[in-house]
């Protein structure tokens, strides 16, 4: 592993802090002593090859899976927090999310407000209620009255992201939010996640597009074989060769005149 790129977690005021998070299923270590800290306002990209443990890490933090180790959010041990309070702290968007009943899009997004009130269906609250605002931010307000399971895959993905954002949780965990989106909506979704983080919250997003991860994330966390292989800025990780080692591909970055990543060419390793 390239130690140069690794930033030690646990410094400063962390919104989310995982220490020695491990998961073992049927004698197999899915996660091994993962440490991760996420600061206020940070957008973290979690990348790694298939089967690296990214989704498992997110599911543990979301409360959908048992784990060993410790997990704290806003300084509170997550195991000691009631499920309702945890829902206000951590929002979760799973990959390939489904909508099982023919509900209206607006009602699906409003499910994000569920932990905060009776059925949490803010009705007729005008333009400034959180659900309306978030639907506008995610560009799905025009779908409001559609039946959710008649949407296209990309539209559904954006509606489900809006649902996760509607929780207004301190930490938003998004598992592959860009899958099934066209290029324009990939960009607007990354901007929406960036905006979410900038309002005093933080976002951890699993991404497969390394270029997007480097362009938008404050920090990139690389996972491999159930461990965190490295953490750092995208540029540092590119330069030290960790990304090429982990993904076993050749990466050729092109930077613009401001030194920002303009594009990233992928190739097979010789």
């Amino acid at each position, binding site marked *: 592993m390239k130690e140069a790129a690794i930033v030690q977690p646990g410094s400063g005021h962390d919104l989310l802090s995982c220490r020695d998070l491990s998961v073992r299923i049927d004698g197999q270590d899915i996660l091994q002593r993962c440490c991760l800290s996420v600061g206020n306002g940070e957008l973290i990209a979690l990348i790694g090859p298939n089967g690296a443990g990214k989704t498992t890490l997110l*599911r543990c933090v*979301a*409360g*959908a899976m048992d784990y060993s180790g410790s997990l704290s959010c806003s300084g509170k041990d997550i195991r000691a927090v*009631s*499920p*309702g*309070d*945890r*829902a206000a702290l*951590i*929002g*979760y968007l*799973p990959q390939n*999310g*489904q*909508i*099982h*009943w*023919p*509900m*209206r899009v607006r*009602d*699906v997004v409003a*499910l*994000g407000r*569920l*932990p905060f009130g*009776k*059925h949490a269906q803010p*009705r*007729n609250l005008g333009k400034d209620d959180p659900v309306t605002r978030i639907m506008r931010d995610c560009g799905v307000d025009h779908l409001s*009255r559609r*039946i959710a*399971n*008649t949407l*296209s895959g990309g539209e559904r993905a954006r509606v*489900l992201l809006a*649902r996760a954002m509607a*929780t207004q949780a301190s930490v938003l965990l998004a598992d592959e939010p860009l899958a099934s989106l066209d290029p324009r909506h990939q960009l607007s979704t990354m901007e929406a996640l960036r905006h979410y983080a900038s309002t005093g919250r933080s976002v951890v997003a699993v991404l497969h597009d390394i270029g997007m991860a480097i362009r938008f994330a404050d920090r990139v966390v690389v996972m491999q074989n159930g461990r965190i292989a490295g953490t750092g800025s995208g540029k540092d990780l590119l330069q030290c060769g960790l990304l090429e080692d982990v993904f076993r591909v050749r990466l050729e970055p092109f930077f613009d005149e401001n030194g920002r990543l303009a594009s990233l060419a992928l190739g097979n390793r010789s």
Partner: protein
Amino acid sequence: MSKRLKIEPLVPMLGLATLLLAGASLLAGPVYLTPSEIVNGLGGSDPSLAIIVRDLRLPRLVLSIGVGGILGLCGAAAQSLTRNPLAEPAVFGTPQAAAFGAVAVLYSGSASAVSLLLPVAAISAALVSLAAIFWLLRTNSNIVSLLLVGLGIGSLAGAATSLVISFSSNPYAIMEIVFWLMGSFEDRSFQHVLLAYPFFIICALLLFPCGRGYQALTLGEDVAWSLGVNVRRLALVTVLGIAMGVGAGVAVCGAIGFVGLVAPHLVRPFCNGEPARLLLPSMLAGAILTTMADIAVRLLPATSEVRVGVLTAFIGVPFFIYLVKNNDGFSGTRSQ
């Protein structure tokens, strides 16, 4: 929001329909009564009217509303928990277990000696059948595993019922068992009402607060957990509620199929697909279905009464198929 406002009167409308049918159920039968005769019968001023109204028709009506309502409610809960439009209360195996308990009593021949023994055995069998499900839920909250265990229990109880029937050497007992399995509200008394209703009330008290959890489950188990819903507890409470409600229903009226499957589908298009808003309308739709079927069995000319379980299917299925055909999105399976 205009469409939302249009569907809000659904519950009062269904409530009104239930009341009208309740009135019709008291009026109609082999002897047609006038409203004033019903008032006299209820007041007890005319002894023969009192027997018809108070002892025959009223307990029958109260049971048909209760059993139908509970079946509708439990059907909506079962579909919401499993997120499967094909689910019904029987997927957890409890009605079959209750039926086995009752059939065992009928077989032993002690049913007539102690008339309450049959329902007590049925409810007990339903609760015992939960043991396997509770054992599963201790470590596993996967809904598919829950369904598989429920189906297993249902098959086992069905096989045990068949075994009892094949052991029975008395043809009269076999006929009694078979007719009982078809479900009926005939000759039920307030004793049955008193026995079943406490379970119905517990069932409703357990299931109605689950609406919020069912709502969250629309987006899958992981999202439900992340929204602060304890999915394991939700499954446990749902299965317990269904066992108590449907177990008690089977105990007093036999096995009435189909209502639990169809009632939620009849009202879902008007509830915007939201599981939390489905519970009460589905309960009322169930009550309407069974009460209609119970009126119809009394009016049909037959040497012996057609069983109500048969009629619920005859009334419900055509309407059900019409709805499925004309509303391709209503079962959650709308194609793109």
